[in-house]
């Protein structure tokens, strides 16, 4: 598997570390249902074969955090984005809808 880092270009999987599901966001610790929300955040996964958004870290390269959309059945990589850009866009959307 090779990942096309937005900074470095295409690199072998040996340069990257996998950091899990990129679709979940950390719950609010002060929520009255925080315990249930954290259980869902940490453990509950649908694990559907097909495209999935994952966090990867370019550990042996530029140290950028990435959101990789990968078909977990075929390993085909559909997109690679900077996790920072994804987070900023998500925050902007949250603000816009508030």
């Amino acid at each position, binding site marked *: 598997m090779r990942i096309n880092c937005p*900074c*470095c*270009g295409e*690199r*072998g999987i*040996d*340069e990257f570390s996998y950091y899990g599901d990129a679709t979940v966001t950390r719950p609010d610790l002060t929520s009255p249902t925080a315990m249930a929300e954290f259980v869902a955040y940490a453990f509950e996964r649908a694990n559907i074969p097909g495209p999935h958004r994952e966090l990867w870290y370019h550990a*042996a*390269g*530029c*140290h*950028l955090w990435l959101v990789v959309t990968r078909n977990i059945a075929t390993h085909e990589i559909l997109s690679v984005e900077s996790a920072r850009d994804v987070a900023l866009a998500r925050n902007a959307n949250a603000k816009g809808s508030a």
Partner: protein
Amino acid sequence: MAKSTLAAQSAFTDLKTSKHAALTIEVLDDLTMASIASSKGRAEEVKAAIRAAYGVELPTTPERVTGKGIAFIWHGPDQWMAIADRGAGMRDIEVELKPVLAGIAAVVDQSDGRAVVRLSGPRVRDVLAKGVGIDLDPRAFKSNGVAITHASHIGIVLWQVNDAPAYEIAMFRSFADSFATWLTHSAAEFIGH
């Protein structure tokens, strides 16, 4: 307290500068280096300050730019490594850059934190291919190209100096001997032990 004077020591215990038909190894012990990390949102100001002071444009892609007696190596997003020869005048690039980038970037001396070696010669790509996953074919990687990667699991920053071809490789100083072991094994078939 009296100021102690410590003799400079190469990061490489056994690796010495040596010239062979297939490969030339040069241990670059007399460098002054500093890392530059832009403060959040200040990268354009950092670029402007370096442009004003050295007349070069800091690269935003994995490339090296050279100015008069100085080189800037891309080192990640909004980060660079400045490198120059220390020379008889004991040039100190950290001291030189700090006032230029005051308040807009973190400038940290790396001169004794990194070890740098220059490799050149007709078989240099074959030697590197045994541990470096980057395609160094001239169609894919050119002079002034930079790659942050690893050589046989040792983190390195590699850049191409010229089309000879010559490459320079920087690593954390404590990995210098491990790197030298890999390099001498990798080069053995071309230069002997």
